[in-house]
């Protein structure tokens, strides 16, 4: 079966680099599944998990936005931060989830609450990826 190469790169260095059978990512306009031979595409990603299927098993990588560039044999995901499940600092994510929730409950201006919402989303995404419930 044909495979395609996936690269997940962040400013702090590559996070993931491997051959997989299929990629499922959440883009701004919905989920897309990418198989080998996909037409060249660029799409922005939302905060969420990227699912990488390899030989019947799947792996998850938490990405915080960014975008995906698809070529027939190669997929690059460029994002400002990404973690594979085993690298996630779950204690820190839980901590920041709590902080964000508190900030959302306190009445603040719109800018603050949208920031808190984003950080809540990121934290929940990390926790979900870590625990594998997606």
């Amino acid at each position: 079966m044909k495979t395609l190469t996936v690269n997940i790169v962040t400013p702090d260095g590559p996070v993931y680099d491997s051959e997989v059978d299929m990629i499922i990512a959440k883009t701004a306009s919905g989920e897309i599944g990418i198989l080998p031979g996909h037409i060249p595409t660029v799409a922005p990603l939302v905060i969420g998990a990227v699912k990488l299927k390899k030989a019947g098993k799947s792996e998850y990588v938490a990405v915080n936005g960014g975008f995906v560039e698809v070529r027939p044999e190669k997929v690059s995901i460029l994002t400002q931060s990404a973690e594979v499940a085993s690298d996630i600092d779950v204690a820190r994510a839980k901590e920041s989830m709590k902080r964000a929730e508190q900030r959302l409950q306190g009445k603040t201006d719109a800018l603050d609450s949208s920031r808190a919402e984003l950080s809540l989303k990121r934290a929940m995404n990390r926790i979900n990826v870590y625990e594998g419930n997606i």
Partner: protein
Amino acid sequence: MASLRDIKGKITSTKKTSQITKAMQMVSASKLNRAEENAKAYVPYMTKIQEVVGAIATGTSDGAHPMLTSRPVKKTAYLVITADRGLAGAYNSNIIRAASNAIAERHSSKDEYVILAIGRMGRDFFSKRGSNVIGEVIGLPDQPAFSDIKEIARRAVGMFTDGTYDELYMYYNHFVSAISSEVTEKKVLPLTDLAVETGTTASYEFDPSAEAILEVLLPQYAESLIFGALLDGKASEHAMRMSAMKSATDNATDLIGNLTLVYNRARQAAITQEITEIVGGAAALD
């Protein structure tokens, strides 16, 4: 002439200083290695993002995205990347001089520009001179991660978008090699000089549209440029600190050599004098 004890004291203290500078040199050398690795890790991200930005920006005929178009300049922002500490030779003063010269040349009043400072030295310099420092990050680690400057990068790009200023320049030291670096001025925003590389530009499908992607991509690109400059600056900071400490150590070694010479001469003089006195005393007894 200084007494033997004085000279000895000077030698000891110079030796101790040179031990410290030597240690600092070695610390900087290892930090430089790490910084170079970080800069290397960042390269694939940057080349990729440049490629895609180039492909999209040239692919869309109406390059009307606000971050790509120059507008009349009412206010300019300068992002000055310095170190938090001194003892790095001319590292900080070079950057600060270049930035303040450019500002003095281009602007007649303090209302025409704002400063964003990364690093304590630059922040202190500009805030002491009454410039308008609207953003600052200090106390960055020696090996910064992107999350450390995400906040200021996002603000810098955001303030351009919402019209707080119409241009953003960056001042930092570009790392050339372990012994040389050069102060660089780079225009970050508007993104007028996109590296357009034809050849690899595959024609992409855009989902949902090229404009929507530019919306995400361009801020991310500009923020990465800032991070790249910071990594570059950090590498040259460590390199300059290393060579500053190396010359300090060399100077101390020279000084110790000279002092030892003086010390031996003084000791010899004292011995000669003692012998003369003894001989003189013995002669007086005869």
